[in-house]
């Protein structure tokens, strides 16, 4: 009986404990279900975060070709040197040993040290330099056993096979900086990424850059990389074909730089610019600026000394004069003034003015370039001989506003959509502009100056080439472009055809008539005859005293004080194909310096 109650009691206790066991098993089962089924996604992500490190793979940058497929910018295989960080790494010692073998760029080393100090992860590769020659690489490779921390990674390096010929146009790439990141929110912060800093490289950076790929590295708990493979392929940048013809470009550059004019012990190339444009499509065939630079020095990492010499150079080799060089256009805008006059009806084809060499207005004297005057001449002759007094009179009759409107219509100081960030708009002054900016009223004397393209007026070579292209085309308001243009339609020009033909005849006479200012530079081949207009721009004002004493000849003046030589033109006369603008800074007169260059380049273009 006693045994029975004992057994009963023990069974009751046993039942209690067994229930407890059952509940425990239930809780464990639920916990497993919760972790593995309900919360699986969360833990799966955590596990992958543990397992994998992702690193970016830089896409190959798109290449740039000229209109005939010749390479202007390409990528070449290169090696980057990396150091693997770990505890107790004596960086100074390793770098010291390395620099005994190779020449490490000082800036690379200081940049590397910055990166190294800011580092918070272990066991990752830190970039030292990608600026090593093949010889340096092989020297290190042979002694790699002495540098267990060092490794190479294959990279691509930007090269510009044409070097200085296309320097301003193609531009260059450079390391990504904080500023770039602030400016462009889409950029991925990747220390070794190079982005376009200048020229087409900058303008088309997004297109050329491509999209990053990702490399996936499997990492164990101690941070050691177990496997590494490409997870997402990088999308290489798109190639770019531009409208420039390398042949013409290189010819134009050498022709511009080797002007044998009034040099006094100056062994430097001429400064200036040449722009040639297709008058039917707006495609820019050549776009030259001098002096230039070798863009490849930016690829190998420009030394601060080199950079300083580029920046400090008074001739500003980094400036793309074709698009950001602003010059007074001088006589090259006389066609526009004439067109403004014809369109507004203040003058007819046969109206004549008398030029005695000077125009007096109030107590001011405005001189013609021809000391003794051109006599009694009409509009066509005034353009042909570039008579200033004629245009003083004409300018006063038409007024600055109408001149300005015509200049805008022809592309000066208008909003040109060129594919270069460096483009600087020219300036066509107006009464309102004078009041807003200078705070004083417009004076008729300023109209007189403006009508021969002096005074406040400024323009760049692209605008001037566009102006001539529009006159030559006569139908459409051609816009310049650096891309091959097959489809783009332009707006109508809306200028009376007869007026345009009259002006074009006058421009032809400038080159082809024996009284023309550029007669010496005419093209003799019958089918390729050129029309144009010269311009000689005063850089310093000539005082009346100086005039009395006799004007000092250009070549006797200090280089900085010499006139700019300009020429704009188009060819052939019938069915024009190309327009051109040549500017030689301080090159003397347009007819003697600029026009021959234009002629030679035009011949090269047409043949």
């Amino acid at each position, binding site marked *: 009986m006693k045994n029975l109650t004992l057994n009963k*009691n023990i069974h009751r*206790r046993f039942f209690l404990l067994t229930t407890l*066991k059952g509940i425990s098993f239930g809780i464990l089962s639920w916990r*497993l279900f919760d972790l593995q089924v309900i919360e*699986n996604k969360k833990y799966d992500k955590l596990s992958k975060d543990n397992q994998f490190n992702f690193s970016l793979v830089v896409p190959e940058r798109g290449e740039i070709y000229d209109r005939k497929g010749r390479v202007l910018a390409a990528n070449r295989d290169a090696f980057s040197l990396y150091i693997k960080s770990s505890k107790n790494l004596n960086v100074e010692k390793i770098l010291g040993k390395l620099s005994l073998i190779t020449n490490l760029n000082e800036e690379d080393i200081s940049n590397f040290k910055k990166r190294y100090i800011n580092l918070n992860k272990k066991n990752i590769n830190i970039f030292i330099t990608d600026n090593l020659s093949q010889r340096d690489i092989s020297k290190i490779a042979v002694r790699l056993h002495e540098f267990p921390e060092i490794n190479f990674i294959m990279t691509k390096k930007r090269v510009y096979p044409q070097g200085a010929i296309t320097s301003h146009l193609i531009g260059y790439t450079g390391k990504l900086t904080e500023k770039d990141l602030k400016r462009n929110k889409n950029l991925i912060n990747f220390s070794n990424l190079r982005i376009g800093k200048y020229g087409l490289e900058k303008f088309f950076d997004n297109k050329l850059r491509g999209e990053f790929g990702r490399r996936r590295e499997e990492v164990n708990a101690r941070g050691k990389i177990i496997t590494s493979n490409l997870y997402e392929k990088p999308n290489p940048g798109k190639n770019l074909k531009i409208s420039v013809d390398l042949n013409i470009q290189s010819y134009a550059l050498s022709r511009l730089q080797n002007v044998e004019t009034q040099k006094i012990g100056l062994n430097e190339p001429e400064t200036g610019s040449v722009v040639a444009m297709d008058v039917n499509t707006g495609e820019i065939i050549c776009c030259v600026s001098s002096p230039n630079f070798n863009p490849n020095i930016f690829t190998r990492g420009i030394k601060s000394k080199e950079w300083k010499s580029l920046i400090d150079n008074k001739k500003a080799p980094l400036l793309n004069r074709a698009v950001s060089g602003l010059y007074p256009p001088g006589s090259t805008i006389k066609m526009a003034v004439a067109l403004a006059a014809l369109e507004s009806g203040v003058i007819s084809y046969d109206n004549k003015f008398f030029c005695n060499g000077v125009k007096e207005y109030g107590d001011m004297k405005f001189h013609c370039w021809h000391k003794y005057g051109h006599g009694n001449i009409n509009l066509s002759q005034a353009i042909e001989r570039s008579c200033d007094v004629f245009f003083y009179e004409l300018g006063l009759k038409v007024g600055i506003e109408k001149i300005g409107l015509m200049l805008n219509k022809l592309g000066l100081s208008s909003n040109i959509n060129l594919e270069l960030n460096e483009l600087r708009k020219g300036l066509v002054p107006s009464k309102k502009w004078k009041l807003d900016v200078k705070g004083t009223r417009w004076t008729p004397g300023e109209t007189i100056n403006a009508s021969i393209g002096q005074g406040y007026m400024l323009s760049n070579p692209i605008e001037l080439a566009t102006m001539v292209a529009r006159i030559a085309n006569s139908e459409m308001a051609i816009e310049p472009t650096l891309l091959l243009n097959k489809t783009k339609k332009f707006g109508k020009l809306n200028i009376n055809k007869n007026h345009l033909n009259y002006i074009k005849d006058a421009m032809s006479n400038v080159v082809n008539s024996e009284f023309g200012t550029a007669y010496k530079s005419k093209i003799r081949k019958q089918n390729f005859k050129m029309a144009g207009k010269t311009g000689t721009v005063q850089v310093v004002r000539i005082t009346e005293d100086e005039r009395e004493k006799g004007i000092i000849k250009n070549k006797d003046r200090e280089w900085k004080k010499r006139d700019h030589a300009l020429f704009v033109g188009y060819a052939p006369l019938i069915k024009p194909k190309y327009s051109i603008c040549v500017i030689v800074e301080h090159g003397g007169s347009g007819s003697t310096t600029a026009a021959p260059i234009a002629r030679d380049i035009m011949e090269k273009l047409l043949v």
Partner: protein
Amino acid sequence: MFSYKNKFYKPDSLLKKLLKMDWLLLFLVLIICIIGVGALYSAGNGSLNPWAMNHLYKIILGFLIVLILSQLKIKLIMNFSVALYFFCIFCLIYVIYFGVGDVKRWIDLKYFFFQPSELAKVSIILLLAKFFTTYPNNSKNLLYNIFAILLVLIPGFLIINQPDLGTGSMLILLGFSIIFLNGLSWNIIFSVTLISLISLPIIWQNLLEYQKYRILVFINPELDTLGKGYQIIQSKIAIGSGGLFGKGFLTGSQSRLDFLPEKHTDFVYTLISEEMGFVGSISVLTLYFFINIILVREFLKEENFTNKILIFGVSFLIFLYVIFNIGMVTGLIPVVGAPLPFISNGGTSLITIFIGLGIIQSIRVSRNV
């Protein structure tokens, strides 16, 4: 009682004895053991060394022990219970002075390391069974119970002091559950519980900040993400990322990339869960559950009081191992360090459980059916 005595004079043949063993139970154990070898093969990155082969040898040894113990009369085994208990106490004191290992838990026996704390678990089952059989039915007597509790607490505190909180607390829980089963009066249980609950806040108040922090970390290891928390966080990630069907045999990234600590011992269940998913982890848990059901059936079938205590003790020991281990790796209970029976590559604990199984078999074989 006399009816049993007759049995001594008519011993069963060896074949009959073998047939009387619980082969279903041993079959389930064998399956779990094979899973263990597989898991350890994976833990060794797809190699039999260093753990899988070693484990296999220990399993064979374990089954031999079961076979040998099953042939011994349970009464014979019980005769050694007191001696075994004092031997364990002696060893536990011995390791304080001559133990090896970081925490002085093992005795170096030249060919293997012996961990007396594991053997103490079996010995406490045997001793309590002996004690309650020899002095039955005094469950309401306070002194009687205090003596029983002391029998448990002496080895318990010796082990906790090593320090091995997991094994120590497991032993204490095992002992208390047997005392409870024997009929510890509810009055005592309630009053002790009440006193502890009241004194708990007072003790907490008097603790220093760092002591409080240590206790908090013990309760919730994830507070300490680099130390103990790290293991638990990684273990949970591994289990959770296994999903329904797992990452596949030999492909668990957490274990293969060494994010899992102790993947061959205490955290082997995590590895199985990661590679085999919920399907695998719940299957293993179910096998343990079946083993427990078989032992419950055995308990209910058994009529002898001593044997009842022994069967319960062994089943509760296996249960405690499973709950401690899986509870720990899934982050339900603090990290205390407990191996998973038949799967974790541990020495003495594995043998201890096989000794337990051997006792069960001995009871079955000795039974007069």
